[in-house]
C-alpha cells in the first residue's frame, strides 16, 4: 500500500522567554497508508495536535521529514491541499453566519463547487439546520459543521482532531458510521481521539504518542496482542484450593475473592482439565484480553497512580529493551 502520510523524526520545541523551552515532539514517526482508518492516541500534551499542525503547515517543525499524499509538507502541501480535508482541534466559525453560508464561503475560498455544500451538510446530519446561525448550534452541531467543512473538498485524506468532541452517543455513532463509509469509499482517515473505545471500534491501525515520541504503532489487534498476558478469569467453588491445584500444575494463579486470575498457558482447556480432574467444576472461564484503554494507560503511564492527579507532562516516554513498552508492529515501519 502507498503511504498517504509519512513523518520521520519530527521535532518541535516551543521556545518562550518566560517559560523556557518545551519539547513538544521529539523524533516522532508516523506512517499512514492508503485506505486505513488510523487512530492517533496520546495523553493531553503528548504532541498529537502539534504533530498534526506541523503536518498541515501551521507549526514550523525544527527537524524531521513529512509528506502528505507523496508531497513534502509543508513545502509542497499546496499541491495536494485540495485533496486533504482537516479539522484541527475545534475550529471556530462566525456565530452570525448560517452553517450553509459558512461552508459556502470556505467552498468559494477553496475553489470547490458550491453544490458540495448541501452534500456535506447532508453527510454530517445538518441538512435541516443548515440555515440556522452557527451561534445557535450546540457544541456537537459545531463539531459536525467542522467535519462538514473538512468533507467539502471530497478529500482523499481526512485528518480529524478529536472529531467526537461534544457529540452525544448517537452523534458519536453517526461519526463512526461516517468514517467507515468514507473509508469504504477509499478515503484514508487519520483520527485523533481520547475516546479509546471509539478508536478500537473504528480504527484498523493505531499510533500512540507519549511525550512527543511514538510508543506504539501498528494494526490495532496486533498492538493489543503485544500486550496480551494470556490471563484467564476463573470462577470456581473453593478458589483457594483451586489456586493450589493450578500451581501444582505449573500455572500461575492468584485468588481474588470468589475468582482466580490464572496465567502461564495459552490453552484454557488445561485449566478446566486440572480443576475438573479434582472435582472442581468451572463456573466461568474468560480470557482477559487487553483493550486499547489498558494498553494506552500502560504505555503512556497515565494510569499508574489513580489516586494521584497526573500532570500533563508526566506521561511516560518510550522505553528501551530493558523493560521498555515501545512497540512497533508496522509491517513496514517508517524506517524501513
Amino acid at each position, binding site marked *: 500500500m502507498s503511504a498517504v502520510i509519512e513523518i520521520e523524526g519530527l521535532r518541535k520545541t516551543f521556545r518562550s522567554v518566560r517559560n523556557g523551552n518545551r519539547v513538544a515532539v521529539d523524533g516522532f514517526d508516523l506512517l499512514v497508508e492508503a485506505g486505513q482508518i488510523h487512530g492517533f492516541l496520546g495523553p493531553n500534551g503528548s504532541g498529537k495536535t502539534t504533530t498534526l499542525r506541523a503536518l498541515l503547515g501551521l507549526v514550523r517543525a525544527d527537524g524531521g521529514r513529512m509528506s502528505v499524499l507523496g508531497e513534502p509538507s509543508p513545502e509542497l502541501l*499546496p499541491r495536494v491541499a485540495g485533496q486533504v480535508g482537516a479539522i484541527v482541534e475545534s475550529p471556530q466559525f462566525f456565530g452570525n*453566519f448560517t452553517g450553509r453560508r459558512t461552508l459556502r464561503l470556505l467552498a468559494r475560498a477553496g475553489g470547490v463547487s458550491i453544490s458540495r455544500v448541501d452534500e456535506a451538510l447532508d453527510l454530517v446530519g445538518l441538512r435541516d439546520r443548515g440555515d440556522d446561525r452557527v451561534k445557535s448550534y450546540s457544541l456537537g452541531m459545531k463539531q459536525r459543521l467542522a467535519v462538514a467543512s473538512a468533507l467539502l473538498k471530497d478529500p482523499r485524506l481526512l485528518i480529524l482532531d478529536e472529531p467526537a468532541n461534544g457529540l452525544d452517543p448517537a452523534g458519536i455513532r453517526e461519526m463512526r458510521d461516517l468514517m467507515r463509509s468514507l473509508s469504504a469509499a477509499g478515503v484514508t482517515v487519520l483520527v485523533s481521539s481520547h475516546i479509546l473505545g471509539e478508536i478500537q471500534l473504528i480504527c484498523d491501525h493505531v499510533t500512540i504518542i507519549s511525550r512527543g515520541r511514538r510508543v506504539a504503532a501498528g494494526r490495532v489487534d496486533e498492538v493489543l496482542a503485544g500486550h496480551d498476558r494470556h490471563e484467564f478469569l476463573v470462577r470456581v467453588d473453593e478458589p483457594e484450593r483451586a489456586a493450589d491445584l493450578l500451581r501444582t500444575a505449573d500455572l500461575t494463579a492468584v485468588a481474588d475473592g470468589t475468582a482466580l486470575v490464572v496465567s502461564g498457558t495459552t490453552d484454557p482447556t488445561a485449566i478446566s482439565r486440572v480443576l475438573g480432574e479434582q472435582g472442581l467444576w468451572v463456573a466461568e472461564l474468560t480470557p482477559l484480553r487487553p483493550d486499547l484503554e489498558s494498553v494506552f494507560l500502560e504505555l503512556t503511564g497515565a494510569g499508574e497512580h489513580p489516586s494521584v492527579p497526573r500532570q500533563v507532562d508526566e506521561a511516560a516516554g518510550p522505553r528501551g529493551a530493558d523493560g521498555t513498552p515501545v512497540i512497533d508492529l508496522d509491517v513496514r515501519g517508517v524506517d524501513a
Partner: protein
Amino acid sequence: MNLVRAELERLSARRFVQLMIVLLVLAFGITAATTLAGSHRPSADEVSSARQQAIEARQNMEVSYQQCLAQRDGISTPDTQEYLPADCSDMDPALQDRLPIASDYLSGVFNFAEQAKPLLFFLIAFLVLFGFLVGASYIGADLNSGGVVNLLLWRPRRLTVLGTKLGTLLAAMLALAVVASVAYLATFWVIGQTAGLAGQLGGDFWSSLGAIHGRGLVLVLLATASGFAIATLGRHTSAALGVVAAYAVVWELGARLVLAIVDARRPEQLMLSTYIGAWLDGEVRIWDAQLCRRNVSGVSCDGFYTLTWRPSLAVLLVIAGGLTVLAFAAFRRRDLN
C-alpha cells in the same frame, strides 16, 4: 479571485464593520440634519446688509493700516487707546490670508465653500478611525478565533492568504471612503444650494478640496494597513488599540512634555501627529522660538518653519510600510494556534 470574493463576503458580514457603517451613517445624518435645520437661504436684505458690513470691515482694516504707517513714520501721534504692532505689515490688508466677505456677516446661513474643508476633515478623521479599527479587528478576530487557521487548511499559502486579506480590506475601505466622502460632500453642497449659500466655488476651490480628499483617502488606507499590521504582529485586535493608546499617552503627550521642559528644538518633528496634519493640509507652519533668536542679521524673522506634504508622506509610508512588511515577515514564520 474566489478568495477575494470570500474575503469580501466575510468582511461585509462582520458585525463590527456593520456597526461602524451604521455609526458613519448616523454621524453623517445628524451633521446634515442639524446643518439643514440651522441654515436658511438669506433674503436680499440680509445679503445686502452683510455686503455692507464686509465693505466697512475692509475699509476699517485699511484705515488702521494707514494709521499704523503714519505713526511709524512720525506723521501722526500715537493713539494710546489703540494697540498698533511694531511691524505694520501685520495689519496690511493685502497680506492677510483672507479679507472679510459678506458671508461672514450672515448668521444662520450655511456656506458650503467655507465649511467644505472642515467637514471633509471631520469625515476623514472618522474614516481613519474606522479604517484602523476595522483593519485591526478584521485580522485580529480571525487570528484569535482560529479563522485564519481554518482558511490555511484550505489554502496553505500564508502570504497569499494574508495578502488577499489586506488587499481586499484596502480595496473595500477605499471604495467605502470614496462613496462616503462623495455622498457627504454632495449632500452639503445641495444644502448650500437650497438652504444656504454655495459660496465662492471658483478659482482653485475644487482642486484644493480634491487634493485634500485625495490625501485623506491615502491617510485612510495607511491607517487601515497599520491597524491590520499591528494586530497581525500582536495576534489580537487589542494589540493595535494598545499600541495606539500607548503611543498617544507616552509619546505624543509624555515625550512632548519632556521635550518642552528640556527645551528641545522642533519637538513637533518627532511627533507623528505633525506629519499627519502636514500631509492632510498640504503643509503646516510650526513656531520655532530659536529660529529668530539665532537670527542676528536684522532681516525680518517670523519664527515659523514649514513642513510640507512630501516629507510627511515619506514618514507615513515608512511607518505604515514598515509595519506591514514586519507583519508579513512574522506571519510567514510564526506558529499558528
